[in-house]
């Protein structure tokens, strides 16, 4: 299956990353993992996924820096990004939303089914919008 039909999960913790991939798969959504922001950026530039679940605390480039890069390259907000982080400070949330993230979920406050529902909701909205926009050539 091409990555354009999958969710990209950017998460450096193996345990959490695998849990997310398995759960999404069990509920009809294919997903693949990137362990750091640089790898995620390469993957996104190569082939845009359906949606990105983005952790903030990552080795090397952090999640907000990745989000800013994607915004500067006009990839976001077309590409929906949901922040999934254990950071919960208001200023982080505001920063992420200002950079074009569709939502900010604090990991410890949501379970897997709630996260999956959020993903499905956002994809549902995106699909509707995409139907009405004339086809744009991909870079």
């Amino acid at each position, binding site marked *: 299956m091409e990555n354009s039909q999958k969710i990209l999960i950017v998460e450096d*913790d193996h*345990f*959490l990353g695998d*849990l997310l991939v398995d*759960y999404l798969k069990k509920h009809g959504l294919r997903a693949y993992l990137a362990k750091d922001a640089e790898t995620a950026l390469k993957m996104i530039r190569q082939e845009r996924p359906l949606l990105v679940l983005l952790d903030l*605390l990552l080795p090397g480039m*952090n999640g907000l820096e990745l989000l800013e890069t994607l915004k500067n390259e006009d990839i976001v907000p077309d590409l929906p990004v949901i922040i999934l982080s*254990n*950071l919960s*400070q*208001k*200023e*982080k949330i505001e920063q992420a939303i200002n950079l074009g993230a569709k939502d900010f979920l604090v*990991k*410890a406050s949501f*379970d*897997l*089914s709630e996260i999956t529902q959020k993903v499905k909701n956002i994809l549902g909205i995106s699909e509707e919008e995409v139907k009405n926009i004339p086809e744009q050539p991909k870079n």
Partner: protein
Amino acid sequence: MKNNTIVFIGGAFAGGIMEGIFLWISSAYPGEVVSFSLFEQSTLLLFILLGGVASLAFSYKKRFDADEGVIAKHQGDNKAKDDLISMTLHHIRTPLTGMMWSTKELSVETPADDPQKNRIEKLHEETVRILATVEKLLKTSRENNGRSSYCFEEYSTEKLERLISESISKMKPAAYAKDISVETETSPLSQKTAKIDGDKIITVVQTLFENAIHYTKSGGGIKIRMEEKKDGFLFYISDTGIGIPPDEQSKIFTQFYRSTNAKRARSDGLGIGLFLAKSFVDAHGGNITFTSSAQGTTFIVRIPISEPNNTIPKQEEKPPTDTTI
């Protein structure tokens, strides 16, 4: 005292020896018994005294320097300890989140008639509880390190009342589950405003309400009251709980302190809820007080208010750091 006496005598002895040598050298007849004039006796006494005082002063300076060194080392050690604690808690939080997710799914997937169902549910509940504890400890660590970041906005008294009421509503089911009644009373509010960090106030309300539930027996009651007075917005929370023993009341806002009643009611508390609540209320320029007896406890939180657009003394906002854990 004993130490100081020894030091003084030692110094005095040394002073006396020095003067004796001086006099012996200055006398023209080293071999003879020297008889001292009154003047010479006085200088001898003076040197003895000076010797003693100098020795004492020197000893004090040494001790002072040593103390300063110890204090500086302690402060450095405390910061290192706090950093280590933050780092550890953050690293624990990640796998705990995974465990919370997994145990939830296990619980959902286990049929109701499975004999393991209860055990799995309990496992999940305990994981959620540990995670909540880790969050509290992290907040305390941030507070201790001066790394709590505050985000103040202007709230009307009406908005503040709504914020508190909504927090209470979310927690009412927990009270009802323990068969504790909850009553809320509000009074008319003016157009005045307050500088509020919403998340911090929610934490304060949650802490006080959770305490009220924990320390009140089944069948008891919690009363919430909000009113506006000239100098502030007041939030009262009264319970019919076990109260705080009088000789322990002065300590309850101390970090990690737990009263004997608290320990009896709940062996697993951390003693940081009230410490954090007080820190947060203080940061708003307000204060938190209480009255307590064996029939129950009432906490009163006061937040300063003023006319809209008036300058409330600027609350110091601690700058957020990029990699705040």
